[in-house]
């Protein structure tokens, strides 16, 4: 088992109080698994990803344990996490492609990074070139500045950099959202290629674009307002979701072939709750069409069928 997370709870400390961005997340990721993480803006996707790699203020560790390839990750200690970063676990942060240092040539950036990890640039250079070829970039990019690359090229460069030391787990946060459809497809397929070539063992692919996940992910985990709602195979989440939120989310997606004149889709009435003072129990409760008294308690995230996890009192019971 590649990644195992138990009760991970992360808050943001603000003057107004704690923002409860991730609450008791427990799930695991198998070797070779590409797991999509989906959910509305602000539901805690980036918090989950960032806390696994660099848990710093105002983020605050509340509780929970994380195991990668059987070894516990000291995520609450940024110093102790150092040896794990890039080598065991690596991230492509949201907005990374716009955060590249504009004054440094790409090659210099790679060199500095390797040095900081105690690696020798010259020795690794041939492999760097191999990897560039994998993502269809010419070695010339090493002599260029970030502004000389298009968005798609930058994103592919960031992919190469973050996977150079063959991490076991790659966290990819919204890597396709700023790209147009043809670059999206290329980048998504390259990520799958990295897994197939065993450059990385497993990938957590975070995006709110579910149709991208349908193309690439083996499983999808849906989050709502800091809580896990459902995790299952991609086919199950798209074709037979059980959580009321997942159902509404999937049915609100326009896809080519659906026209408003023939098939008017519906959104989800209401807004997600603020996480500063979230409601008790299931946080989807006041938007949920099937909520009942029991939902004032937090529904446990349980396996209702092999590989299908669900946190819902109604659906969980109906199909237990």
């Amino acid at each position, binding site marked *: 088992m590649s990644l195992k997370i138990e009760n991970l709870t992360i808050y943001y400390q603000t003057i107004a109080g704690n923002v409860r961005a991730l609450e008791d997340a427990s799930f695991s990721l198998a070797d070779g698994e590409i797991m999509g993480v989906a959910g509305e803006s602000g539901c805690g996707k980036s918090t989950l990803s960032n806390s696994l790699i660099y848990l710093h203020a105002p983020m605050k560790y509340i509780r929970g344990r994380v195991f990668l390839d059987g070894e516990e990750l000291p995520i609450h200690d940024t110093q102790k996490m150092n040896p794990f970063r890039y080598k065991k676990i690596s991230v492509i942060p949201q907005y990374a492609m716009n955060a590249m240092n504009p004054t440094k040539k790409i090659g210099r950036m790679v060199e500095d990074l390797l040095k900081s990890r105690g690696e020798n640039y010259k020795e690794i250079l041939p492999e760097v070139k191999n990897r560039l070829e994998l993502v269809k970039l010419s070695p010339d990019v090493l002599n260029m500045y970030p502004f000389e690359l298009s968005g798609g090229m930058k994103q592919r460069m960031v992919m190469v950099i973050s996977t150079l030391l063959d991490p076991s787990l790659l966290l990819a946060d919204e890597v396709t959202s700023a790209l147009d459809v043809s670059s999206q497809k290329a980048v998504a397929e390259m990520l799958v290629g990295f897994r197939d070539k065993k450059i990385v063992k497993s990938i957590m692919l975070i995006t709110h674009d579910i149709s991208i996940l*349908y193309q690439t992910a083996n499983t999808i985990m849906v989050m709502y307002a800091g809580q896990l709602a459902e995790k299952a195979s991609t086919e199950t989440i798209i074709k037979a979701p059980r959580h009321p939120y997942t159902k509404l989310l999937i049915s609100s997606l326009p896809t080519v*072939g659906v026209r408003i004149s023939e098939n008017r889709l519906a959104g989800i009435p209401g807004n997600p709750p603020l996480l500063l003072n979230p409601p008790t129990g299931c946080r989807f409760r006041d938007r949920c069409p099937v909520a009942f008294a029991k939902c004032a308690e937090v529904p446990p995230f349980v396996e209702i069928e092999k590989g299908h996890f669900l946190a819902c009192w109604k659906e969980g019971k109906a199909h237990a």
Partner: protein
Amino acid sequence: MLKIEDITKTYKTGTFGGKDLKAVKNVSFDIHDGEIVSLIGESGSGKSTIGKMILRLISTTSGKIYFNDKDVSLLKDSELKEYYRHVQGVFQDPFSTYNPIFKADRIFSVLHEEFFPHIPASEWKGRVDTALKSVGMNPAHVLNKFPHQLSGGQLQRFLIARALLLDTKFLVADEIISMLDASTRIDVLNLLSDLRSKGLSVLFITHDLSLGYYISERAVILYKGSVVEIGETKKIFDNPVHPYTRMLMSCVPRLDKKWQDVEVELTEKKPMTANGCVFYERCHSEYKLDECAHQSPALVEVEPNHSVACVCCKG
């Protein structure tokens, strides 16, 4: 309603403005009353440039834009103000439109002062409430808040409400939903469609083809500033003819079909042939000819209300 005739935009680039960049090349199309037209193309294809020329935020290098048969470039003073009463734009990033120091609903009071000083405050408030309700918001929940206290979708709907207050007949909607969540997206799209049935026309700029398919009657496919395919949305999507449109269609992530094994041509920054087909370098069509490098193909009707600019449909 709006007619675009052979417009071109050349930007001066380089340190001393010594280089020319043709961002939009000889584009023509029109938008009828109560019609939504999608303008689709990849990043840098010139979509926003066209939107900005319509809104007169930038000038055209050549060509004409007519609004109800009036040449937009000639409008002055009161005529121009009148134009902005009817033609409005909403842009991609709702946050950038707001000043974080002021409450978000300040956009409404500014509008009041600027366009409707003669309307008493109480009546104006009633109008604002009505506009907010028609974009699906409860005024009590959203008024009197700072931008950071509202979601992207709410801020975006504020801007649409603002356009409604102005008696907007034509809306340039530039990537207005790419920042929004799936469930909010559909609300905004449905809203645009409801407004259309009340007579609003929309230029819907997007690079998400499924959104364009969902909402628009007609679509314009833009590549490097040139229209490569234009016509009824359904015809273009069901029967894409231009090699670029076909490539786009094969890349759209769908929920009913997995990506086919087609290679995406990633050559992005190659120099353009001066007067050949804009898609020449990336084209893998079986119909590709040597002449494509030197002669840019004109739009040819391939079926009623569906035209394509490619040698493959010349004869």
